[in-house]
């Protein structure tokens, strides 16, 4: 089967911008989104840097187009904003014109709301309008909010494979198009910051108390972030006559099967996922112009990913950077957000800097790109996403031969 999957729309929101234009401006100005925690009351305020979306839930609801009373969690609001931008950018005016699905991903789901209301939920003497949030705890809730807001009915699903979640939703969408089950799919993911994840990662002692430094020998951990990123992918039939941003040429999923939270030192799962993505795309490692790494800034991830990359690319690793020092680690959303970055890298022939890198890691051969590079020739981008539970995924985006 040699069917192609075209990317025709992109949308995102993160700490570095509420849409694609603002995001590009932040990259141009080298303005990271990492700062202090504002919207969550927590002991970690002032202590643990995070990459927060700079808007309250009320402001997000207005941006999402909810004019009347809404019952959406922050995760759902972020998702609706990014998915709507993606649909608009794909020039879709009639969502029912083709068989359309939505596949989203999230790791916290509605926990950002549940954690504030849990004790009230359990106290039957207290009651209020807030009871409406009970049903929004489930991960699928944000996906249904997105589907209902853009009118998608033909197919819905939600994936949660920790930090690789939205890379997997993109992969599933592509497979469904190739199998002829859908003509176009809005794929990506959404996650908001929560006390649950901030404290969870804190107990694992992998949060950097300073701005994170992916792939630096002195790296101390990750900064958590929040946001959503979606792309619209279409079959040849649905994409006909439209502006094609690029193709999703490859994807691969594997499991490291090493430890519940830690990646294997040699990055066996990461290597397998990349190997599968190359096989699907028919490309060779030497075809890749830029790698958007998972690069969280933790000791374990960057060593594991770096080692797997050195093996995959035979120590001839092309331009590579982690964008997580800009956006923070957005967990279930990062694969979607970084897919948008990968598409933009091809569209604008640019490579993003890996901020805060000073010291070369002795274990790996490559040094990440440290400045914003323009006027490059970016034809194929590899995007990695790895998560707890050994879940590893890799996507390859390629310049399309189909130019309008």
């Amino acid at each position, binding site marked *: 089967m040699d069917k192609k999957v075209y990317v025709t729309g992109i949308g995102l929101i993160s700490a570095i911008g509420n849409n694609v234009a603002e995001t590009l401006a932040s990259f141009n100005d080298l303005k990271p989104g990492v700062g202090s925690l504002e919207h969550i009351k927590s002991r970690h305020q002032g202590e643990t840097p995070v990459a927060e979306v700079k808007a309250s839930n009320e402001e997000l609801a207005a941006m999402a187009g909810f004019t009347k009373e809404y019952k959406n969690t922050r995760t759902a609001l972020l998702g609706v904003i990014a998915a709507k931008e993606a649909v608009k950018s794909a020039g879709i005016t009639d969502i029912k014109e083709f068989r359309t699905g939505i596949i989203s991903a999230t790791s916290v*789901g509605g926990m950002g709301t549940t954690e504030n209301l849990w004790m009230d939920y359990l106290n039957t003497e207290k009651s209020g309008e807030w009871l409406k949030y009970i049903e929004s705890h*489930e991960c*699928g809730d944000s996906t249904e909010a997105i589907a209902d807001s853009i009118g998608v009915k033909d197919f819905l699903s939600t994936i*949660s*494979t920790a930090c690789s979640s939205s890379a997997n939703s993109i992969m599933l969408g592509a497979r469904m198009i190739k199998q002829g089950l859908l003509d176009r799919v809005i794929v990506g993911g959404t996650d908001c910051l929560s006390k649950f994840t901030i404290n969870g990662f804190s107990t694992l002692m992998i949060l950097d108390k300073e701005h994170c430094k992916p792939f630096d020998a002195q790296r101390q951990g990750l900064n958590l972030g929040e946001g959503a990123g979606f792309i619209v992918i279409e079959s040849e039939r649905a994409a006909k006559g439209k502006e094609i941003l690029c193709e999703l040429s490859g994807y691969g999923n*594997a499991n*490291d099967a090493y430890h519940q939270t830690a990646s294997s030192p040699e990055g066996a799962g990461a290597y397998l996922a990349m190997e599968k993505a190359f096989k699907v795309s028919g490309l060779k490692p030497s075809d890749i112009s830029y790698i958007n790494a998972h690069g969280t800034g933790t000791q374990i991830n960057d060593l594991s990913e770096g080692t797997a990359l050195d093996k995959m690319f035979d120590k001839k690793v092309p331009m590579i950077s982690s964008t997580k020092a800009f956006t923070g680690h957005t967990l279930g959303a990062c694969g979607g957000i970084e897919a948008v970055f990968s598409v933009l890298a091809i569209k604008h022939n640019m490579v993003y800097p890996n901020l805060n890198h000073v010291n070369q890691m002795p274990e790996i051969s490559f040094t990440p790109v440290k400045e914003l590079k323009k006027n490059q020739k970016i034809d194929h981008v590899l995007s990695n996403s790895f998560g707890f*539970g050994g879940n590893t995924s890799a996507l390859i985006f390629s310049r399309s031969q189909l130019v309008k």
Partner: protein
Amino acid sequence: MEAYITGTGIISPQKTFDTDDFLSDVVKYDTNSLRCIEPSYKDYLNPTLARRMGRVIKMGIAASSICFKDSNVAIPDAIMTGTALGCLEDTEKFLLAIIDNDEQFLTPTSFVQSTHNTVSAQIALQLKCMNYNFTYVHKGYSFESSVLDGLMTIAEGNGKDILVGGHDEMTDKYYRVCDRVGYWKKEVVPTMELIDSKSDGSIAGEGAAFFMLSKEQKEKCYAKLRSIKFIYKPESQQEIEKRISEMLAEKNLTADDIDVVVYGINGDARYDGIYDQLKDSYFKNSTSTYFKHLCGEYQTAGSFAMWIASMIVKTQSIPDAIMIGEKKHKQIKNVLIYNSFMGTDHAAFLLSQC
């Protein structure tokens, strides 16, 4: 996109493991929250490991082990599971620790295990299985998505034996929370009276059910899984019937070819009307059965239904406890499952004789 069901592993509120019996003697409950009859986990897990694990993780690992043994598959070519609520017990434990201790003195175990993909990950870890691994978390489409992915993986030529499954656990606290938005009945309804109950709400359930989907027919074969369709928020009965008709037409079948229908009737007066209409008109010539009085209502109850349908096809029999009305079929070639969760996520599965 078709596959053979060549193994099952079920842990449910009924006695569904370590037995060949097919619900001839069902466990009847006088409570609105059914919990699983659990095996002795030392048969499936290292006891030190088991002590640290939440209940649903243990149920998931045990049910998948039973499925591997039943299908005689050592390492599957892919693992995909569905869970709407993930590891609820661990999630609550970590959440309460945050609240009670004001974000201090926390330990990572329950956080690590609260991740929705823990069960698929633990299965992979136990088997050292580095193959494709997915976890679906979409309410009433969690298990259904894993089944669709299994069928797709086989159609793509990416595997011969695929493990799919659904697992969700209920806790006392989450039962009480959902009760506040009208999920459960206010009065206690005994198991065999659920279908006649005319009040709002259902009874809570839980379970872990795994299946081996195989490309080739094997000596042991429960049924052939031929199709699965998602019908999201149907606007009318006509839409449901149209979508089922399209599904059947793809396999050159009509409603009259369906010998037995397994309905997701849950005793909730708000939603059972859809099943009644299907039963009394569209599928009026098919034998009707139901199952949620035995396992309770939960987002991945479709997995219990798939076990029921697989067993009906394999044994060519229908236990009395799940029959509605009279037997209308001669032999059992085709079984259709129609299930929905809380009126939004509807799905239909088609199974046929091997």
